[in-house]
């Protein structure tokens, strides 16, 4: 009987000892593998160029998320040269970082290289402008849908049923860039079912404001009753806007971009009538998350394909709220 008592007491002590460890907290079993997955890893980033809102914003977002985890973040800046970019990727394939983040200048140039990189055991994440070859992940706007929505906005503004002339024009970036090619398909698909709309001009301005201005000025003077322009990048469309302003006409200009503050200021000042925004810090976060997922799961590169389309905001002067845009951390 006495023995039994001792046993009960002993087990009671043991139980209380158990609760005392509980009070001190227990370790989250997923923590260690989470941090271990990132130790000593390298992420290399090849944008079309640094020095503008989109690429700087992505770099900033990736760096601030990845570096605290112990991931090395490297930037290779080809400065608008496709061949330098291809060289950078080629040399990265031999250097073997763990993840390669690529912003494609056009749909063809890097396709083979990206395939090679995956074969060499590097995860490849593409951002905003995709290559014809699909890799582990793509994060960016759904340009075909976006083109369709833009066409729809122009139809709302400009169709003869709504009191417009039905005449619209498009100013693309570089013809072969994914942002131009896919978007054009979206626009044309929607316009096909709207014979009352008339696409009077469809030209490429190479992402350059001066070229955009010259094209827009000619279009404006050739079609004095033009009702709307769609431009493919806010930085370039400043030129289109200048041409519209100089013509003294009231023309609807729908532009697009990463939603940097300068663009929103342009909306307030009346540079653009409407902006389609894919939020760059949001895209950076999506990329960082996909990278974390790839590194943790450890599947073979190229074995899974994920597409994350960025939600789009259609901003006008009226519906714009503070906080819809973001600012580059260090301007200059």
């Amino acid at each position: 009987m006495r023995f039994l008592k001792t046993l009960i007491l002993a087990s009671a002590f043991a139980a209380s000892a158990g609760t005392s460890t509980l009070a001190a907290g227990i370790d989250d079993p997923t923590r260690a593998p989470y941090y271990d997955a990132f130790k000593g890893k390298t992420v290399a980033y090849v944008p079309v160029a640094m020095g503008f809102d989109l690429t700087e914003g992505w770099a900033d977002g990736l760096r601030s998320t990845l570096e605290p985890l112990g991931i090395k973040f490297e930037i290779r800046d080809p400065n608008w040269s496709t061949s330098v970019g291809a060289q950078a990727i080629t040399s990265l394939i031999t250097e073997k970082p763990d993840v390669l983040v690529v912003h494609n200048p056009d749909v063809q140039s890097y396709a083979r290289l990206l395939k090679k990189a995956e074969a060499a055991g590097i995860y490849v994440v593409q951002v905003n402008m995709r290559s014809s070859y699909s890799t582990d992940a793509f994060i960016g706007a759904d340009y075909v849908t976006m083109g369709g929505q833009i066409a729809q906005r122009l139809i709302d503004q400009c169709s003869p049923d709504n009191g417009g002339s039905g005449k619209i024009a498009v100013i693309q970036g570089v013809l072969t860039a994914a942002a131009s090619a896919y978007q054009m398909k979206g626009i044309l698909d929607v316009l096909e079912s709207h014979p009352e709309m008339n696409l009077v001009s469809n030209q490429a301005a190479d992402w350059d404001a001066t070229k955009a201005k010259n094209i827009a000025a000619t279009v404006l003077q050739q079609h004095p009753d033009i009702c709307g322009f769609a431009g493919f990048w806010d930085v370039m469309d400043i030129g289109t806007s200048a041409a519209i302003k100089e013509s003294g006409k009231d023309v609807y200009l729908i532009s697009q971009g990463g939603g940097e503050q300068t663009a929103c200021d342009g909306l307030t000042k009346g540079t653009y009538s409407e902006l389609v925004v894919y939020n760059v810090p949001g895209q950076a976060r999506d990329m960082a998350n996909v990278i974390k997922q790839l590194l943790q799961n450890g599947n073979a590169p190229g074995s899974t394909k994920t597409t994350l389309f960025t939600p789009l905001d259609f901003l006008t002067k009226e519906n714009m709220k503070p906080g819809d845009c973001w600012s580059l951390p260090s301007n200059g």
Partner: protein
Amino acid sequence: MNLRLSQEQIVFGLAVMLCIGFAIALDGFLTTHNILNLVRSVSILGILGVAMGLVVIGRGIDLSLVAVMAISVAWSLQLAASGMPLLYALALGFLFSLVVGLINGFLIAYVEIPPIFATLAMGTLVYGFGRYFLFNLDVLYVPDDAEYMIWFGQGVLFGIPVPIFLFAAVCFGAYIFLRYTRYGRYLRAVGDNQLAARITGIPARPIVVMQYMLSSQIGFIAGIITAASVLSMNTRIANSTFIYDVILVVVLGGIGLSGGRGGIRNVIVGTLLIGILLNGMTIMDIQYTVQNVIKGVILLSAIVIDTILNPRDEQTAQQGDI
């Protein structure tokens, strides 16, 4: 009948033919508005053409012209954005362009590096220097309160866009300089035959330095108009093929790369041909890549016609082209 047309006349003829063709075929080509728009759209190209023309007449070439224009103006805008009064910022940018011109001239006149290499390297250097040390962004915006600067790019005077007046003013200034000033005549003499010019007592080396400083200055002016016209300066143009368009305007107009020949009129004719071509093709909504093909073919044919009508003679063969 001995028909000897100069290249300038051939190109002018081509321009007139294109003009007539477009006027018949395209509605709205030959209207005052469109012609003004046409000239406005090439006025910056024309101004740069004048700068390049002066250098080429002096038997040189300035491949750093577009880089200097982009970087000096972008630096001014960066300074203005960080709070410096715009006028000071522009003065510093202007000074920067002058210094680059001075170094170019020094390298070519005194160190005797061939201009094509000196300015090619300088263009890359200036772009890299600007992007690394002066500012980080590749497009810089004109501040909102810079109304008088914006006027240079977007203003209208007596119904004519201000850039056209500026183009005319630069042409007129360069014409007077070449024709009626001592240094202008020296420039041509040095371009025609540097050794002979030196023997006659012309300060040949300082004249070479002057010609590069002139081209940088004019480049800066063109940059101001570009920035004012689209409220931003895109420094990417430093790496684009724009510099070849500028050389094209000069060579197409008939300023020989062997130096000493040609004048401002040639630049104007070359500029107009390019302007008419671009404008007509935009009106026709021809695809961009096809436009490049057409542009290339017309330029080649102008050169071929010139070679047939004005075959290379002993003198040009001796002097050599670039």
